[in-house]
């Protein structure tokens, strides 16, 4: 399988602060990736290095097999839509689209104009007069119509309402189906996107915490609910990442796949098994780690 991005032993330090710490991974071409993690985890730093906007302190990055720095061929393959993207204030939306058309080799102007109608944007209005949500919509339209072989959306929807976000997901899945390409989506709205991510990378404190196919990840954790004593005996010896007691009942999140034996036992004990959503899983894993670190410090 060919790789869209290869990152090898990457580190980025800002003075005493290490934002990305010895990270290695690769991104397979033509898949939709989720790059997830808490604020300050290092996601944006990583995306800026991949797109050659900042330099790494150590390590190397390749995009479609080439080093992206000062490499116009490699950079023409990349479209990076940042959170709070800035545009020249006196440009009209249609001017911004013209500039985008000159940058991206696969740009589809007809598609861009269709999207402008879908998102109900005023083509002739100047960028300085647009609302925050409209600016985000412009970014999303550029990201989609660029049809760039590597398209990266970093929290693209500041100020966007649920209807516009929904429209973004629909158009993204549709257009990706017709024009497969590598897409990296970084967002905190995990529940909204979890069903169409094919692969998930979670970054925590500058390191990779999870790098796994979404289908596999869905089986990684399960919630066990039932009478406290029964849940306790069932989860003994298992990796419990979180427990929530309620009266005589207990709800516990357990890591690892359950065997057929486990499932049989849980049925006999009258326990209820429900899957843990991607969002819940990430919340538990990234907050549990913080707690552990705090303990280590003390």
């Amino acid at each position, binding site marked *: 399988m060919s790789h869209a991005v290869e990152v090898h032993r990457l580190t980025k330090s800002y003075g005493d602060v290490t934002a990305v710490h010895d990270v290695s991974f690769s991104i397979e071409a033509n898949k939709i990736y989720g790059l997830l993690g808490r604020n300050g985890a290092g996601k944006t730093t990583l995306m800026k290095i991949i797109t050659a906007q900042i330099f790494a302190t150590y390590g190397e990055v390749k995009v479609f097999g080439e080093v992206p720095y000062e490499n116009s061929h490699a950079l023409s393959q990349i479209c990076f839509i940042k959170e709070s993207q800035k545009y020249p204030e006196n440009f009209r939306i249609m001017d911004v689209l013209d500039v985008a058309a000159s940058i991206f080799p696969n740009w589809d102007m007809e598609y861009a104009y269709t999207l402008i109608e879908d998102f109900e944007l005023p083509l002739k209005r100047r960028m300085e007069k647009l609302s925050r949500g409209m600016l985000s919509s412009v970014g999303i339209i550029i990201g989609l119509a660029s049809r760039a072989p590597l398209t990266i959306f970093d929290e693209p929807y500041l100020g966007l309402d649920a209807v516009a976000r929904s429209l973004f997901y629909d158009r993204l899945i*549709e257009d*990706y*189906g017709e024009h497969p390409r590598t897409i990296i989506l970084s967002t905190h709205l995990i529940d909204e996107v979890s*069903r169409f991510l094919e692969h998930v990378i979670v970054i925590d404190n500058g390191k990779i915490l999870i790098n796994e196919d979404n*289908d596999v990840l869905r089986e990684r954790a399960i919630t066990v609910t039932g009478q406290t004593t029964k849940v306790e005996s069932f989860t003994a010896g298992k990796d419990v990442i979180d427990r929530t007691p309620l009266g005589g009942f207990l709800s516990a999140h357990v890591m690892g796949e359950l065997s057929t034996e486990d499932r049989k036992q849980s049925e006999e004990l009258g326990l209820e098994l429900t899957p843990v*959503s991607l969002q819940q899983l990430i919340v538990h894993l990234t907050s549990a780690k913080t707690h552990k670190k705090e303990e280590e410090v003390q």
Partner: protein
Amino acid sequence: MDSLIDDSRPIFVQIAERIEDDIIKGGLLEESQVPSTNQFASFYRINPATAAKGVNLLVDQGILYKKRGIGMFVAKGAHAKLMEKRKEQFFAQYVVKMIQEAEKLGITSEELTDMIKRGVKTK
């Protein structure tokens, strides 16, 4: 379309079941074309690869078959095959469970038979 898919089981399994349901109910006739994986992906807002996995599950079972360059079609005999499979599932999911529950409550097999007859009548 979110309500049609839930998170209790793998999504591709649910996609396969939705197609099976359509065949059983007659919405998808034998030798008719099945929507493309991209159409499934857009409709259920899932990854096209996940939709393809669900479709391929049914290809492996001989329920669907591929016409090169055109798409996926419902195989001849798919309806009968699925009815057979669902009856087996019905037995495992409902009949066996019902008998277990009846035993717990001390219901004899005659009482159980009467109950089923009564249920059919009042339907």
